[in-house]
């Protein structure tokens, strides 16, 4: 007996969301309002991402869900199980095998390929909220491409700290036109947004906005000519797989405050270990 429609949402809602997605793809980086539904999980847990995923999922898709890079944390496990139960799609933890990847806070280390879709969960879609709390003001600034004031923030950081003190959610210019929040991914992941062969979709449930980066879109972080974008990465190698080129989580290992660094992307870490630590 089937209690829910395929992938939980009813077909009318899916169609509404797909329309928003199509608009978003047509205007890269521009936020499209949509009638976000009440979902069976709290705001801030991925209500936007889960609706976008529900709208694009087909029976042949293979779904991967990650939270902070990990496949085995509560949020990732429960969303993956949710879709397994409501749509019976195949799920995976392998980035290579997945056709749809829903993510919170990371882009997988394994390069995405054409044909894949990555869905980001977005808490605050409006990068200009750092400057103005008014949506009307922000909309006007977007319409006029009036983004100079964003650089004042970067200027202040460099004057005070010698570098831009934004470790995550680092604003980007899309296609030379729209300023976009990349969701709270680490600045280290920003270069992966640029010219990515996969389709990238962003869903903000509480804020009721969808935006997108079509494959091979030009995405540049804001910076100064003489202070180019320079994302931070912990100066260490992964304790488990030895990788020196991945984004690392810092863990306190024991009561004496010893620290360990391990890959935030569990799939890439495991793959490397199985391959003999190469």
């Amino acid at each position: 007996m089937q209690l829910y429609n395929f992938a939980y949402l009813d077909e009318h809602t899916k169609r509404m969301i797909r329309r928003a997605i199509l608009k978003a793809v047509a205007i890269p980086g521009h936020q499209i309002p949509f009638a976000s539904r009440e979902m069976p999980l709290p705001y801030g847990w991925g209500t936007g991402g889960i609706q976008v995923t529900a709208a694009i999922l087909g029976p042949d898709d293979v779904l991967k869900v990650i939270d902070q890079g990990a496949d085995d944390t509560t949020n990732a496990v429960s969303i993956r199980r949710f879709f397994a139960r409501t749509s019976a799609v195949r799920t995976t933890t392998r980035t290579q095998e997945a056709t749809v990847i829903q993510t919170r806070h990371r882009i997988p280390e394994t390069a995405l390929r054409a044909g894949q879709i990555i869905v980001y969960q977005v808490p605050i879609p409006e990068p200009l909220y750092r400057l103005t709390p008014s949506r009307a003001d922000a909309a006007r600034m977007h319409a006029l491409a009036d983004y100079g004031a964003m650089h004042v923030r970067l200027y202040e950081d460099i004057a005070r700290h010698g570098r831009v003190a934004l470790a995550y959610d680092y604003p980007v210019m899309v296609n030379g036109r729209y300023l976009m929040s990349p969701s709270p991914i680490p600045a280290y992941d920003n270069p992966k947004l640029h010219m990515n062969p996969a389709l990238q979709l962003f869903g903000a449930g509480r804020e009721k906005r969808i935006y997108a980066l079509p494959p091979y879109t030009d995405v540049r972080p804001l910076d100064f000519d003489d202070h180019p974008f320079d994302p931070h990465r912990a100066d260490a190698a992964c304790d488990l797989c030895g990788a020196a080129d991945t984004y690392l989580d810092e863990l306190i290992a024991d009561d004496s405050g010893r620290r360990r660094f391990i890959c935030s992307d569990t799939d890439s870490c495991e793959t490397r270990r199985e391959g003999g630590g190469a």
Partner: protein
Amino acid sequence: MTLMAAERITRRFGAVAALEDVSLAIARREIVAIVGESGSGKSTLLNVMSGRLAPDSGSVSYDSGAGLAPIGAGGEAALLDLQRRRWGFVAQEPRLALRMNVSAGGNIGERLMVAGARNYGAIRAAASRWLETVEIDPARIDELPRGFSGGMLQRLQIAATLVTEPELVFMDEPTGGLDVSVQARILDLVRGLVRRLGVAVLIVTHDIGVARLLADRIVVMRRGRIVETGLADQVLDDPQHEYTQLLVASVLPA
């Protein structure tokens, strides 16, 4: 060489006619002072001419190099471009015009960054140079304006406005809330700067002394109409309209 022209501007606020059929032209490099009592419509005229307020009827035109053209004709983006690149606005209250949680250097650099400057070192050098120009110690470039005195804040606002070397600057009672000695220093500074940069200025003031010190031409307003206009010395030394005579006579002799 008319730089800006307002023609037959009327603007009402409810039943009150703030401006009635007002026309005014400004030439390149000319300093024009609008004087008049509170409620005479002088600030409304300034706001209409700077594109901050739409008139009910009449038009404002500006010459960006290809002859006079209405300022609203190119849409909001074109008007914003004029305001950001070719004009400046110095408000009476610097605390509302400046970003108080951004350093002095950031405040001066903002207009440069808005205009497209993307070289941190160059922006910082310009900010430092302008602090010196307005007689603020360049060592305070990273300080928040919160710790600045009223006169310093106003000088900072002037630096933040003139840094892009605009063609036309609007000033609304720029020495309003300041004590007399500070006023004198700021007026001196403004006079030197606008002459050196060749900026045209439209300044609103109720202080005849300010007008005498700065202006080439004086426009006297009363009840939403221009009652007298002429060269500064001419208006001040030989006022024709009875209201102007009253204004000039009511100044205490120095």
